[in-house]
């Protein structure tokens, strides 16, 4: 029995790593049916799997389609496992609450969606405001959602200035210390992030997760 269930965890891990979106949900159900507690399945099968996806990306073996498929397969499994967890009265420790969006004037949301998926896969609670998000909307949502982090995406050099404006609005409203701010997007650099007073910058969606983790840890 024991042997069998650990094999089931293996299958689930592999399904997530290989981005088999249709299989990861049913495999999570099977693992539950064998009597394993949901928390154990998450910790032993899912979290190591998504970490491996990130590692394969960093190693240059995975490209964006594999990265997204991994995150989606993770999401499918987690939907089932979190429901089961809730039924037992437990909740998964959230890695943090993130309000994310593409800044005003910018309709590009590929990069933002990718970061949102990866953050969700890494147990963050993500509030996605979409694209072309007004400056004050970020601040409002962060307050309302009691967010730890605000994540600002921009693809255009013309709109990246709006990342700065969000930070300025936080300052002028006396809210700068309440939230950590991270920025990203094609034209954004580490130097620019420092200049506009952001707390963190990730060059890729995988790095964004690491940055988010460290920012939340500092905060806590």
């Amino acid at each position: 029995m024991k042997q069998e269930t650990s094999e089931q965890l293996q299958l689930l891990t592999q399904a997530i790593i290989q981005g088999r979106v249709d299989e990861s949900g049913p495999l999570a159900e099977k693992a539950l049916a064998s009597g394993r507690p949901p928390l154990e399945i998450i910790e032993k099968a899912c979290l190591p799997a998504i970490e491996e996806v990130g590692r394969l990306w960093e190693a240059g073996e995975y490209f964006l389609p594999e990265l997204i498929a991994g995150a989606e397969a993770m999401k499918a499994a987690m939907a089932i496992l979190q429901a089961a967890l809730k039924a037992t009265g437990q909740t998964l420790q959230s890695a943090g609450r993130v309000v994310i969006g593409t800044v005003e004037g910018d309709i590009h949301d590929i990069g933002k969606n990718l970061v949102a998926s990866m953050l969700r896969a890494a147990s963050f609670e993500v509030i996605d405001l979409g694209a072309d998000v007004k400056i004050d909307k970020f601040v409002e949502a962060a307050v309302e959602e009691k967010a730890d982090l605000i994540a600002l995406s921009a693809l255009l050099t013309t709109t990246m200035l709006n990342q700065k404006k969000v930070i300025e609005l936080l300052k002028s409203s006396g809210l700068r210390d309440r939230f950590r701010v991270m920025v990203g997007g094609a034209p954004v650099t580490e130097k620019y992030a420092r200049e506009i007073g952001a707390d963190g910058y990730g060059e890729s969606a995988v790095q964004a997760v690491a940055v988010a983790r460290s920012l939340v840890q500092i905060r806590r």
Partner: protein
Amino acid sequence: MAEAIRPQVRFLSQAAVEQIIEEAFELLEKVGLFVENEVALKLLDEAGEKIDQRRSRVFLSRNLVEKGLRSCPAEIKLYDLEGQQEYLVGQDEIHFDPGSAAIKLLDPERLEEREPRTDDLVRLYQLVETLENLDFQSTALVSADVPKEMADIYRLYLGFLFSRKPFVTGLFRVESLKPMLDLLLAIRGDEKSLAAKPLAIFDACPSPPLKWSRLTAESLIQCSRLGVPSELIPMGLTGATSPVTLAGTLVQQVAESFGGLVICQLARPGAPVIFGGSPASFDMRKGTTPMGAVETMMINGAFAQIAKHLHLPTHAYMGLSDSKLVDAQAGLETAMGATLAGLAGINVISGAGMLDFESTQSLEKLVIDNDICGQVLRLVRGVALREKPLALHLFQELGADFNFLVLPHTRKWYRQEHYFSSVLDRDVYDTWTALGRLDIFQRAGKEVSRRLNLYQRPERCREKEVELRSIMTAYARSCGLEKLPEIPGLSD
């Protein structure tokens, strides 16, 4: 005498062309087109199209697209500032122009990108005016020393102050459209003359997938009503904003273009439209949009083949590079793209001077690209059969020393048969050393200076200056700018 064959390249079989068009028709009928413009929606409604008003989605019927294709002209003639020189945009005629709307300029001294200013725009226009292989100008740089609200029209205004070549341009915000068209009207005198002799092409980019925004649809409608050619620029990114396969992206690109064409033809039947594009092979590792990728070029070439099948003028962003410096990568990507575009017979080829994913212009690269374009123009003229017999008679004229150099035949044909470059290195080693061992970037820098010294401001630019300035000044005021930046070179 046998005619010269124009070298050509094809990317699709006839069956593939027809299949892509067929799927595009179905896509528009089944999924529809998103149109965020009230006037365009009204035109489509009046034409009897099925519209989901709540979602601004139009299910475009095949009949209407076919009708639009019938009323759209197969050729456009552009004219220079004086209305004298004529440029045919159609058939297999090719015209090069600088890649447009760069927000950065490569500083040749520091080898860093920086924001361009008024004097940079002036220098670029002056330089392009002297580049004999670029038939058109484009509003190639965005000047950072004026408010963003007027950055689009300001580029065109400066262009008309310094160049007689036709312009490829476009707008960033809807408010600029009228004053930009007013600049054209000021030059031509009235609407009738402008329609008879178009001076500028307006680019309009649908948002992938399948959407024409308020701004872009407005540009299509207003330009069409005035007979100003609209260049449709779909920009699918394979696997990101369009299907990952090249053929799949082509289906979407054709559908988006059909949508734009229909809006133009409803605004005014017979309105000039160019089927163009700026698609890219999306990089699945970096998340970037390489314009120098061979797949990007293949989409452009195949799309032009489809447009030609439909008897429409064509455009593409080709002959540009993603490199950050004017280096070997810049040369190879630019030459490969320009060559393929020429062989594909694309009518308007935008890209010269451009680096870094369509974001950075370089004057030095413009000069080098002028040589690339010159050689492509030579290439497509093919191997001409100049005389009959071709060579036999020469050997009777030649003396015992076989001295071809002295033949009148040589002097008669050498300039037409051979392209002469301005910056490529064709010196022997010792001469090259004696000239300072310069690489092509350094030689191009000298050539930029030489050409800027040769530049002469066209008389017509001088004549129109006051009228153009009053339009520009009025619009600048509405954008909160009381005084325009100092413009160098007006008194030259």
